[in-house]
């Protein structure tokens, strides 16, 4: 029936009644929300630790704010991940093994470590003496583990049989780190800090958002190495969200450049940036679902992959 059938597209491989060849990811909305929350928390922890090292007590309030975002983000993120499980009461089973072949297992270790350290850092930052020092140590530790936390979720997606994720595997982690950094800066910019602190955050935010835009292009390009695989970035709800994300990020950059010196302007830019980052995660999630439904994408990515 489907075999040998003449169709308009030259790409058509045979399929079995056009049915999907791999299963659709079973994850629900909690997972893309976690990608945003967890990523922003990781980047915030890192930014806090770098400030702590380079600025000492000069940026005390900004460091505190970073730690708070990291602590809240990892807490909320853990909750989201647990609620997405089919058996939430068994979430601790994630930690009964240490398994480098599984990005989800590695991610669970990264997340619990980051949760503990950033909570410790946030709670101890107002204390004195030994406890304050402990808080600083925890802050540094959280900053280190924040690095993988900011983007390991891209490795999680790349480590599947879903064609569009698999074919974006080199550029997606970079995109996730950039987007997480932009997201963390947006959250920080909403606060009220002194001019110098804000300058640092806005600079980093601009660099992150520009990188995010460039890397989104890179992800599209990478997946397009196999014709048709990148279609979910162009078509359907995932495509619309993909473009929306780009638009929001560009908007955030423009608003920040033009009105970033005033508080309302800054908050406006930060809101746009936040929405852009969230839209990006939802787009990628839905793109994966659409891609898994397309047997041509699955087959072609195996027949035509260059490696």
């Amino acid at each position, binding site marked *: 029936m489907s075999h040998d059938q003449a169709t308009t597209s030259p790409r058509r491989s045979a399929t079995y009644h056009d049915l999907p060849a791999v299963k659709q990811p079973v994850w629900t909305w909690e997972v893309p929300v976690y990608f945003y929350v967890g990523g922003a928390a990781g980047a915030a922890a890192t930014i806090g630790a770098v400030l702590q090292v380079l600025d000492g007590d000069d940026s005390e309030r900004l460091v505190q704010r970073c730690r708070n975002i990291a602590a809240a983000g990892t807490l909320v993120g853990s909750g989201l991940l647990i609620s997405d499980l089919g058996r939430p009461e068994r979430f601790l089973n994630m930690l009964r093994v240490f398994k480098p072949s599984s990005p989800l297992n590695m991610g*669970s270790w990264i997340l619990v470590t980051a949760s503990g350290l950033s909570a410790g850092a946030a709670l101890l930052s107002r204390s004195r003496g030994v406890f304050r020092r402990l808080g600083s140590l925890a802050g540094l530790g959280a900053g280190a583990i924040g690095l993988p936390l900011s983007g390991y979720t891209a490795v999680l997606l790349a480590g599947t049989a879903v064609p569009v994720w698999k074919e974006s595997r080199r550029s997606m982690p970079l995109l996730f780190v950039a987007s997480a950094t932009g997201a963390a800066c947006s959250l920080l910019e909403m606060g009220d800090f002194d001019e110098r602190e804000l300058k640092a955050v806005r600079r980093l935010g601009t660099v992150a958002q520009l990188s995010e835009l460039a890397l989104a292009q890179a992800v599209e390009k990478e997946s397009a190495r196999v014709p048709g695989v990148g279609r979910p970035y162009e078509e359907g709800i995932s495509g619309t969200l993909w473009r929306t994300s780009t638009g929001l990020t560009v908007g955030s950059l423009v608003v920040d450049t033009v009105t970033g010196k005033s508080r309302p302007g800054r908050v406006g830019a930060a809101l746009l940036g936040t929405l852009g980052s969230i839209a990006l995660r939802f787009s990628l999630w839905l793109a994966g679902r659409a891609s898994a439904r397309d047997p041509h994408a699955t087959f072609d990515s195996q027949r035509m992959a260059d490696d």
Partner: protein
Amino acid sequence: MATGFFTDTTVCIGCKACEVACKQWNQLPDDGFSFTGTSYDNTGDLGASTWRHVAFIERPVPLTGQTTGLGDLSWLMMSDVCKHCVKAGCLEACPTGSIIRTEFDSVFVQPDICNGCGYCVSACPFGVIDRRPDDGRAWKCTLCYDRQREGMTPACAQACPTESIMFGELEDLKQRARSRVEELHDRGMGEAYLYGADASEQPGTQGLNAFFLLVDEPEVYNLPPAPSAPVNHISESWRSLALGAIALLAATAASVLSSKGGR
């Protein structure tokens, strides 16, 4: 002892006895009684409660050695199952260690460990394993682990009336499969070949403990042409992440330092 399935699709008659026997022995719930309109296949695919699935392919192509009153038409049937990959995507991806390799070299999900994260579902390159919504855990063919431990043949192989599904020791099965291909080639059916029997022909999975004899491209049966356990390509992504982490550190440090200087 490594055991497995050799499914010879050329003798499958599409009776679905394997589907029924599997459901009965494993006490699997139904998946609804829907009419798909895709030939005689109202099951569609493997899933959390379907561990054997008989595919029906109607091709506008004749099959060597077969004549029909309908001209250029032939039917292919295949009983699909979990491949029990030697390098299994689901097993490598499982974050809890619930999915294990048994003493029979089969891939088994321990239901008392699985927490229903769903990662194996996306990691299986064959679209086999799935999460059962009412139960929350991932399920798939166990290669009748319980029956094998009692020295019994898996239910599907036991029920198959034409020995299209053969169960046995892996090396034995492979020998039988190779001589079957030879036999078919001798009869003029040059298109017959083995899918997944050889690690060198399917490096991404290092071979399948449940392999098949096919007479058309894998895609025709909804089998992937070059499946690979996703773990095989994961290191490239970790490397990118490391690069991203370095960039994040550098950009943050640069922003902080430059804002200091430019005061």
